[in-house]
């Protein structure tokens, strides 16, 4: 009894220290922003950070004191990253800070709500078909009604609001893919999921949203493997996809043209390589510690707070913090792999690994894309890029990761 009490108190101290450090960081960012911003934006920024920090405090206080939860690694990472993203958005677009905050709050609400739904596996089983149909329907709807924006047809405008349905479908995709208990290790149970996945990836392809299509395809591979363990089928699917990809590039050369600058960005300095070269130039200007929030120049380049946000982090916060962000995504996946072993059900194990692998893969596409290590596909950096749909999706994906921890639902008492 005694040793357990000590262990608990040390956990509390850890949480307190971590929380204090993260909040201190957010307060410094807020103070910097407030000191530099125009008068008319000041209220917005104060509200944004005030509410954000308050919600953060309430979340941890409630989870620790009321729900008696232990282990907050996942949320600490998410709150830290969201805070960085919020700081950059508030710095570059002060007037959009509140909007981004609201999206983050909806995401956090979704995170909590999804955890409650995930608790009931039977419910998840029942919801699987409706969610699949809804998700695919949403993509088809987008395909039909969306207009081209920046070369891709992936935005819906509803009453002044713009949403990116593919982000929400990511959550549904994992939910549908993982929510199966029957005949876990057979290929037959995969067939329906393969059809669903094919439909989603195909729709995204037709929207010219190749980055997201690739993310879906990757997630599909992860889920299929986790479910069947069948390497041969997966290699077959990959080969088919590769051939399909080559065919598309052959018949639609303009698709290939979009990636012509890959590995030659300095030769396309003012055209196709514009964004990548600017990211490199300004990342290099930042040094280990950055030039300070608000002091950067990359922010003036198109999509700085979305696709190029990693460059803004390097330039303004420095390379060390940028590396910490990269390690955050790794930490989420490591967390999921570790907890998959003790998961109450394979459903949770698949959900968590798929969700965290998706985020890591997306981070890789984003970061390596803007640094010309991979072709630039224009996907967002999880939690940090500006964009309501994106931040909501990330928080909801986090619910999958959180659900794998036995401590979350307090089955089996002591957390492993």
């Amino acid at each position: 009894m005694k040793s357990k009490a000590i262990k608990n108190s040390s956990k509390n101290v850890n949480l307190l220290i971590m929380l204090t450090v993260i909040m201190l960081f957010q307060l410094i960012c807020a103070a910097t922003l407030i000191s530099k911003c125009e008068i008319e934006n000041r209220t917005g920024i104060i509200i944004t950070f005030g509410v954000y920090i308050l919600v953060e405090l309430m979340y941890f206080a409630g989870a620790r004191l009321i729900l008696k939860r232990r282990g907050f690694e996942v949320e600490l990472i998410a709150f830290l990253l969201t805070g960085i993203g919020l700081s950059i958005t508030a710095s570059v677009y002060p007037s959009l800070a509140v909007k981004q905050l609201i999206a983050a709050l909806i995401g956090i609400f979704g995170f909590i709500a999804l955890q409650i739904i995930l608790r009931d596996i039977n419910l998840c089983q029942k919801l699987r078909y409706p969610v699949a149909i809804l998700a695919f329907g949403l993509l088809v709807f987008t395909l039909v009604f969306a207009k081209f924006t920046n070369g891709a047809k992936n935005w819906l405008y509803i009453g002044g609001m713009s949403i990116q349905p593919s982000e929400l479908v990511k959550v549904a995709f994992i939910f549908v893919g993982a929510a199966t208990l029957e005949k876990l290790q057979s290929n037959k149970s995969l067939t329906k999921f393969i059809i669903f996945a094919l439909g989603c990836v195909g729709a995204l392809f037709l929207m010219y949203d190749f980055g997201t299509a690739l993310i879906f395809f990757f997630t599909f591979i992860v889920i299929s493997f986790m479910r069947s363990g069948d390497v041969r089928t997966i290699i077959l699917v990959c080969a088919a996809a590769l051939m399909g990809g080559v065919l598309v590039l052959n018949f639609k050369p303009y698709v290939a043209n979009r990636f012509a600058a890959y590995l030659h960005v300095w030769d396309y300095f003012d055209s196709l390589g514009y964004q990548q070269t600017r990211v490199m130039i300004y990342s290099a200007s930042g040094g280990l510690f950055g030039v300070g929030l608000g002091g950067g120049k990359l922010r003036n380049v198109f999509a700085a707070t979305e696709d190029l946000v990693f460059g803004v982090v390097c330039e303004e916060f420095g390379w060390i913090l940028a590396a910490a962000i990269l390690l955050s995504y790794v930490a989420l996946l490591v967390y999921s792999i570790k907890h998959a072993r003790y998961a109450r059900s394979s459903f949770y194990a698949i959900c968590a690994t798929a969700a965290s692998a998706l985020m890591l893969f997306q981070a890789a596409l984003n970061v390596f894309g803007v640094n010309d290590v991979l072709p630039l596909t224009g996907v967002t950096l999880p939690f940090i890029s500006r964009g309501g749909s994106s931040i909501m999706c990330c928080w909801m994906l986090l619910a999958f990761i959180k659900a794998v921890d036995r401590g979350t639902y307090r089955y089996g008492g002591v957390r492993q």
Partner: protein
Amino acid sequence: MKSISRRALILYLLIIVFLVGSVFTYYNLVTNSNKWAMNRANRHLYSSGGFTAGDITDRNGKILASTENGVRIYNSDEAVRKATLQTVGDGAGYIASGIQTAFKDELTGYTVIDGIYNLKRYGKGNDITLTLDADICKAAYNAMNGQNGVVGVMNYKTGEIICIVSTPTYDPLNKPSTEKEGMYLNKFFKGVYTPGSTFKIMTLASSIENLPNLKSMTFDCNGKNGKGQIAIGEGYVYCSGVHKNVMIEKAFNQSCNCAFATLADTLGAEKLTATAENAGFNKKMPKINGKISCAKSTLKLENSSALDIGWAGIGQYTTLVNPCHMLTVISAIANGGTAVEPYVIRDITTPSGKTLYSMQVQTIGEYFSPETAAELTEYMRSNVKNNYGDYRFQNLQMCGKTGTAEISDSEDAKPNALFTGFSTNPDYPYAIIVVVEDSSFSIKTAVPVASKVMAAVKNNKELKNN
């Protein structure tokens, strides 16, 4: 559950790939950050008005380049701007060896650790003080009087280069629309010239070292119509005068080609090359302040005929010298044989006043033995005293050697005129090199330029104080 958790392990592979990619990205960033940050598109450094960086001043604190309100400004005197352009460099990076290009990191205060943070904090980078004296550069520019070529002056005891002028030049504040050949080139560092008779200094040095009876030798220089000639190998080397039976001192004074071709022939390729290579020929000079590389001076005599070696001994054939290297060679003679490393930057200070770099006098090596250097000094002193005239270099006890280098076989091609020498007056420990391109006899063109520049050195009060 077991199978699921086993399958999950494969995701570690994904993590490894991600980490390898991240390390690769960071490796790229760290190794290229300097190049990337200095890119012209970096708005931290470049704006429509030019280049935000620290000041470049001459040795007396005169501003040569500075940034005011984001606009790059230069010295207020047009002649100073033109005279120092190739050394200071342009903001746009056309002049690669210019300080503004070669020392961009220092001027912007860029470091891999801090990025361009210093530039943000202080509004400028580090300041660079050159060893140049703006007034002497201006005097040299004026003395060139529109002719193309090079003037370099260096303190032969410390290696401080106090004057570099490379023409054609232009005004960085009023760049001409048409480009002239060589206007982006600092010929003092990057140029090579056929040395002509100035190379006789090297032939003489080799003779002093290898021919004990040099002073008793007589040389045959006979011919018709005022042109001497001597048979070497399978042909003739021609002389600009008929010096009859001439001894070494007079032969050097009057720059007798026959005498020096004979000496080169007597020495042979091996000995002549050994002397030249000991004095830095065929080798790279140390980079100036660690960054600016000089072109190589070359003497290549492998498989050359006796006649070619004869021509090489009088600074023709394929012999080439770089002005900065040649000035270092002459400085070594003045300095008792020991060459000092040339410098163009005296110190670099941060905006907070900390000294990042301060020049240290360094020797490169013993180019000549002290005895050879002393003898060469005597012969070169004799040249000025007996031939060029002490009146041109009053109170300097000048030593020197002229050269008129034929650069083409064509009849109406104009030669390059050269002069190199040094003052033995201990108050003015300076060596000089002058090259005037497409000129005539050096005594008419290069020597007057040298005379004016050395007069400016002598009359410069600030130079004596620091």
